[in-house]
């Protein structure tokens, strides 16, 4: 199941549509890594609303992707973590440390806009959006 990647201005939006196999996640990571350069994007949103399970492999791959995107000079934010999934992640001790997560797509765009206009402020701005 390929994940569609939409270009929305300076941002890329990857909307995961259904449960992903490990290979699909790795392909998504590689595709975003390449496209963020090709499109000269400033930000990447990964929408995981459709994921009903996020296990250690998924969180590890997404954490790695966030690091890669940062190294490519952009920001990444994960949006749409479901409440049940959040409970599971917290219990598993998989807290996606260092990865920005916000409620939904709208908040994701607001987060990236904030980051784009306040580059000097490294503190997590979630409460200020």
């Amino acid at each position: 199941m390929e994940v569609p990647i939409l270009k929305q201005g300076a941002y890329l939006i990857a909307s995961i549509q259904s449960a992903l196999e490990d290979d699909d996640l790795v392909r998504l990571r590689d595709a975003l890594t390449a496209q963020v350069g090709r499109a000269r994007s400033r930000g990447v949103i990964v929408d995981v609303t459709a994921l009903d399970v996020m296990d250690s492999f998924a969180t590890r791959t997404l954490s790695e992707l966030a690091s890669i995107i940062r190294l490519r000079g952009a920001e990444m934010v994960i949006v749409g973590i479901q409440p049940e999934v959040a409970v599971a992640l917290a219990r598993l001790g998989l807290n996606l440390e260092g990865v920005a997560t916000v409620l939904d797509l709208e908040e994701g765009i607001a987060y990236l806009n904030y980051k784009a206009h306040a580059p000097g402020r490294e503190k997590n701005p979630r409460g200020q959006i």
Partner: protein
Amino acid sequence: MARSEVVKIKRGGGAAQLVDEQSKGAGELRVAIHAPADILEARKRGRELAASLGFSSTDCTLVATAISELARNIVLYATEGEIRLAPTANANHVGVVITASDCGPGISDLRNAMRDGFSTSRGLGLGLPGVRRIMDDFDIASSPKSGTTVTIKKWRLR
């Protein structure tokens, strides 16, 4: 939590027979695991079973997540094996019992594999401490001869 019903699985040669006996049990579902796609199938089936037993959606997600970890371990470390899913019950609880078994190389350092952070620091974790945390019962047997069998349960009050 109802921890009284932990199934003790024999180590070594006895395990194979035990597996065959259990497979005859009513209402048991077996999912063969030999490719990454089977991970998705196993956790989908597990979620369906938990939901049919009246578990909350959070508990269903915990069950599906635990299955995902165990199934992936089979694919990564043993190449093939199976996940068995079955309803269970005791006086006050209904539950779901999940058995992940393989004939792989076994886990040489079980104690360390069960230690938090041991696996995650290496990037390719077994995820076993996490699975133990999100389930009510957890039992593991592993040896180079018989492979690895992990049995986990989730309970809810009737």
